[in-house]
């Protein structure tokens, strides 16, 4: 059985479990909504929402919401106590890593699609340069999914992981979030691509490193 087939099998299993339990995605959507409402009230200026805060609100909300998903990423295997069995496939641990990263990416993508219009409405912002914002978001979510899956696996059996995961993950994701905020801010002001191409390249380079390193380290962690 190929690695791709095993990855698909495990991803389908996780999607089925998520659809039946209706826990993780529901919590992520609710949490995202709550973050936007809190930020909208927090950044009120003379009764008006602060439009210049949109990039920060968007990216910080995605960072927080992504953590909610990551904390439950390995919950099915932990409850079952069969992580060793699921990790021991003919293709090694790669199918488990990629299926979990794909699940996180899927959930984060759904949350992002829900979040963008909500942020626009709450902050009364026009989403100019949406194609560049979408590219930055895609790069951000890929990096978060790859690095987050590794961090979640590292901390899967650690006490206080709810507190430790953000402590480990947020500093590592800082370049990605910074790049995302910059690209979003510049794209919203209709700046030309040349104004933020450096940030896009930084995000691309970051993703290339974590997409290669994370599954390699994951194999050692799960060993």
């Amino acid at each position: 059985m190929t690695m791709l087939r095993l990855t698909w099998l495990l991803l389908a299993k996780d999607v089925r479990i998520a659809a039946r339990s209706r826990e993780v995605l529901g919590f992520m959507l609710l949490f995202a909504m709550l973050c936007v409402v809190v930020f909208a009230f927090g950044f009120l200026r003379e009764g008006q929402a602060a439009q210049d805060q949109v990039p920060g609100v968007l990216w910080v909300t995605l960072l927080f919401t992504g953590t909610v998903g990551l904390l439950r990423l390995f919950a099915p295997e932990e409850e079952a106590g069969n992580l060793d069995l699921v990790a021991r496939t003919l293709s090694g641990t790669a199918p488990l890593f990629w299926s979990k990263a794909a699940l996180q990416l899927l959930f984060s993508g759904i949350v992002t699609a829900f979040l963008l219009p909500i942020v626009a409405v709450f902050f009364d912002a026009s989403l100019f340069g949406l194609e560049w914002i979408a590219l930055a978001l895609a790069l951000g979510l890929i990096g978060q999914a790859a690095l987050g899956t590794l961090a979640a696996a590292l901390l899967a059996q650690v006490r206080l992981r709810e507190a430790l995961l953000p402590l480990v993950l947020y500093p590592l994701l800082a370049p990605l979030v910074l790049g995302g905020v910059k690209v979003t801010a510049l794209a919203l002001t209709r700046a030309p691509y040349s104004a933020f191409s450096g940030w896009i390249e930084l995000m691309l380079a970051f993703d290339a490193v974590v997409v290669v390193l994370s599954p390699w380290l994951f194999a050692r962690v799960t060993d």
Partner: protein
Amino acid sequence: MTGVLQSNPARLSARQLAWSVADRFVLLGVDVAFAAGTLTVLWGDNGAGKSSLLDLLAGLRAPTRGEVLLDGVPVGDVHPADLARRLARLGHKPGAFLDLTAHENVKLLATLCHVSPSDEAVRQCLDRVGLARRDQARVVRGFSRGMMQRTALARLLLTGADVWLLDEPSTGLDAAGSRTLGLLLDEARQRGAAVVVATHDFSWLPKPDHWLQVRGGQLSEAQP
């Protein structure tokens, strides 16, 4: 040399196995071999190290010292996928995904062990362990411990492992379930599997080939 060395050829063996937690040795200098087609019972007080020994034999924990061999090859050198297929461990946790049905669980976990069973083969195994057809299609989260054990046993049957390492497998099973379990272990032994059972309840067991007591971190051949 401490511990017990059984007859050859050994399907699964351990040499000078030691395992410590916080400077206290739970197991020390264990030499043991489990031959193909035998049933061995591990018994001993709570905390004696039975479950730890099974985890070490299954390769789920790295020993402090010593090594475990599967057909003479150190388990660290066996491909993890082969290890998962050939060596079945039934522990205290359910082993099944709680939000999948019994049928889905058995099929998925067997497929991960490269068995790729048909739906009919999965149904037959679940029938064999006495799980009713309507329960086979139910999500296992609502299952009793005994039903969970039956689901786990069906997976073991389907994968056809060479070595069965079972920790208190009769927990939660009713009288009929325990009888079925005894029959299945006997069949596995006759098929050539090395079956190792850690238990405090001996009433349901088919006649074992060896009795091993775990005591003071070591093994000795003794009946309860």
